[in-house]
């Protein structure tokens, strides 16, 4: 099974490593045609303004919406979560606008307010080590969205059917259980 990592900017190599630890093949996606080779897609952390801009430029907005419409799972981490959201606080236009959540950018503050913590995530047994870097958070979720974890009463992991999103960078630690969770989602989508 192949899982793509959108490789316009951000933590691409780290995600590919985690995907492979979780037992799937990871592929960097730079062109829309390359989406045809993969059964699931990760949109990595980076700068959402940069990633969003390049997605528009190369036709990824429409292509990823079609990918999602076909029921193929997508996992957005940090900036990837912002890119997935239907609504971004203080910004008129969303990027993909796929997931029924409202997000706030840089919600924990500037770079020096970055931190690491252990998070309880629904569906994963032991706490997950989470790295927050200028992280966004999920202000509110709409119908059909399942909250998987919170930090200080703020939502930081959520799932809506075949869409998964985290505020933090699961790819920057050796703990690949969230990737395993996503790989299992992709497997399940193939089975159905």
């Amino acid at each position, binding site marked *: 099974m192949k899982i793509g990592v959108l490789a316009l900017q951000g933590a*691409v190599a780290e995600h590919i490593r985690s995907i492979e630890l979780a037992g799937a093949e990871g592929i960097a996606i730079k062109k829309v045609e390359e989406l045809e080779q993969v059964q699931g897609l990760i949109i990595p952390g980076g700068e959402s303004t*940069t990633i969003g*801009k390049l997605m528009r430029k190369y036709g990824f907005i429409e292509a990823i919406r079609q990918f999602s419409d076909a029921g193929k799972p997508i996992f957005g981490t940090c900036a990837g979560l912002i890119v997935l959201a239907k609504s971004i606080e203080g910004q008129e236009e969303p990027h993909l606008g796929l997931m029924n959540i409202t997000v706030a950018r840089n919600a924990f503050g500037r770079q020096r307010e970055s931190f690491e913590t252990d998070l309880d995530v629904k569906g994963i047994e032991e706490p997950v080590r989470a790295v927050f870097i200028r992280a966004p958070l999920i202000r509110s979720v709409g119908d059909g969205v399942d909250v998987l974890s919170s930090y200080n009463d703020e939502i930081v992991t959520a799932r809506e059917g075949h869409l998964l999103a985290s505020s933090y960078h699961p790819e920057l630690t050796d703990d690949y259980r969230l990737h395993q969770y996503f790989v299992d989602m992709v497997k399940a989508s193939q089975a159905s």
Partner: protein
Amino acid sequence: MQKGGVIMDVMNAEQAKIAEAAGATAVMALERVPSDIRAAGGVARMADPTIVEEVMKVVSIPVMAKARIGHYVEAKVLESLGVDYLDESEVLTPADEVFHIDKWDFTVPFVCGAKDLGEALRRIGEGASMIRTKGEPGTGNIVEAVRHMRLINSQIRKVQSMSKDELYAEAKNLGVPYDLLLGVHESGKLPVVNFAAGGVATPADAALMMHLGADGVFVGSGIFKSDNPEKFARAIVEATTHYQDYKLIAEVSKNLGAPMKGIEISKLSPSERMSDRGW
């Protein structure tokens, strides 16, 4: 998360907005870009805090600022303003000819220049969380950045192939902490990201540095010294993302207007070489 991105030097709010709109992953707020610092001569210091604050106000991407090598107080002042990264930079006139800043004493992350593996690991040992090649800033000449990136890569390959007893001696030769060198031996890379800086003047220059293994690119004087900064900035961002797509690089390189004129490195006197600052 800056990886795969372009960090651009800006001197005011208007330039910062252009950089953000073009897809920069961060901006470096400066009073003067390196080529102007060269032209002006004299002592180059930390930027006026007004400029830094003005830039922080208008963009949502991270803002970096430069402090002089060894200038603890400039660094603390910039940290107090809330900048996202500090660059302890040889572009400014060094404040200390022996000691770099103890970067563990800060919560803000530091980026530092390096021209070889020894310098890179010494800076990381002092607490730097990002390295960039020094190159030769403000020249528009990529040759020094290439030299530094190639040297660091070849030194890493050499360290990878060493036996453990050789590593102890190599740590002494390079003047670096043994543990960091052991990490390089095992992983085959630096423990932090390594960007290219100092001489990137065209989209093809940026792509060349990515080809040589850089994690991303700093563009200093190149953008706002070109004829059409907006177009130029976008072209650099695209060439960095698609550094192996030569057709695309050809496309974005069309009609960019004149890049900065550039300086032949051998024409610089030793005192004019910024890459020799720091150790």
